[in-house]
């Protein structure tokens, strides 16, 4: 009873779903969105490399972005994440625009936000010169609720949420790997046979 009430109150907390300072433009109150603990993915944006030496090849810019607690299933979101993995950002946006899934709209927003971040903060010159290096989904916080059935029976349903993580890297997308042929497999087998040695001997 008390746990349920506490759970309900935590759900109904307004600072969870209002963006910071949207209703009070004149006040400078820090709402909870800025004070929430930074997750591991958000912290990846904060690493600073030492300046590169003149001879080194240019390190491509990496942008980490994520969205937390999306009201969608992580398994269903995974299919979209798998679709856009390895594509250039324009191609990914085109595919997501014409996908019928609910998560496609969310991922499109996340990609556009990440593109904007890249151009403004991460010194990326051309916003089209980005490709998606990694795109992952994770399980968000689930809530359990009662689902009422006939004859007084009930089931416990889970309200499912997910996180979506994306890593954009500057540069054209890498060429796709050529599929493994029988010749490659045979070569690897012969190499394994050649790598065998005698153990516990002189």
């Amino acid at each position, binding site marked *: 009873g008390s746990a349920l009430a506490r759970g309900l109150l935590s759900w109904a907390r307004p600072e969870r779903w209002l963006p910071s300072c949207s209703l009070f433009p004149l006040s400078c109150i820090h709402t909870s969105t800025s004070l929430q603990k930074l997750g591991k993915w958000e912290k990846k944006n904060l690493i600073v490399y030492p300046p590169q030496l003149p001879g080194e090849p240019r390190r491509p810019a990496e942008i980490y972005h994520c969205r937390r607690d999306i009201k969608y299933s992580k398994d269903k979101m995974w*299919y*979209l994440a*798998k679709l856009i993995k390895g594509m250039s950002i324009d191609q990914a946006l*085109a*595919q997501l*625009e*014409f996908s019928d*899934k609910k998560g496609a709209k969310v991922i499109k927003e996340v990609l556009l936000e990440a593109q904007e971040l890249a151009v403004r903060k991460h010194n990326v010159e051309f916003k089209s010169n980005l490709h998606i290096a990694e795109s992952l989904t994770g399980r968000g916080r689930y809530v359990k609720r009662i689902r009422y059935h006939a004859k007084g029976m009930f089931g416990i349903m889970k309200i499912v949420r997910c996180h979506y993580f994306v890593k954009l890297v500057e540069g054209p997308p890498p060429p796709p790997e050529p599929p493994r042929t029988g010749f490659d497999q045979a070569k690897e087998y012969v190499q394994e046979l050649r790598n065998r040695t005698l153990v516990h001997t002189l």
Partner: protein
Amino acid sequence: ALAVQAPAVLPQAAAEGREGSTEAPGLWESILWMAVPKKRRSIEVNRCRRRHPSKLIQEKRNIDVCPECGNLKQKHVLCGYCYAKVKAETRLIRMEIRKKEGGPFNAPTVETVVLYEGEKPTEKDEGKRIIERARKRPSWFVQN
């Protein structure tokens, strides 16, 4: 005493026995014939099924660029942006029509012509109803 009481009890028991044998099997018996998983499916087996190429989303190869506005569109579908802008203009024209008619069932029996700022009705638009719109003619709305 037993011989007297027995006939009163026996027919009822016989009747119940007969009913029980001819009764259709209830739910608790037919469960034995239902399809039921024998073993828990391991996560490896589940992954093979969920990640099979037939279940992955296919990439769409029918996306082009709209020559009018430059947004993306599917080849066999109207451009969403251009359709939305035409829809908005049509809504305003319909609001003007509603203002002119002033109520339901007042549609005239003649054709309608939409004229924008600075346009005069030509001799072709003699008997037609004229709807005025207070803006410049949009480039996509070609005048006859």
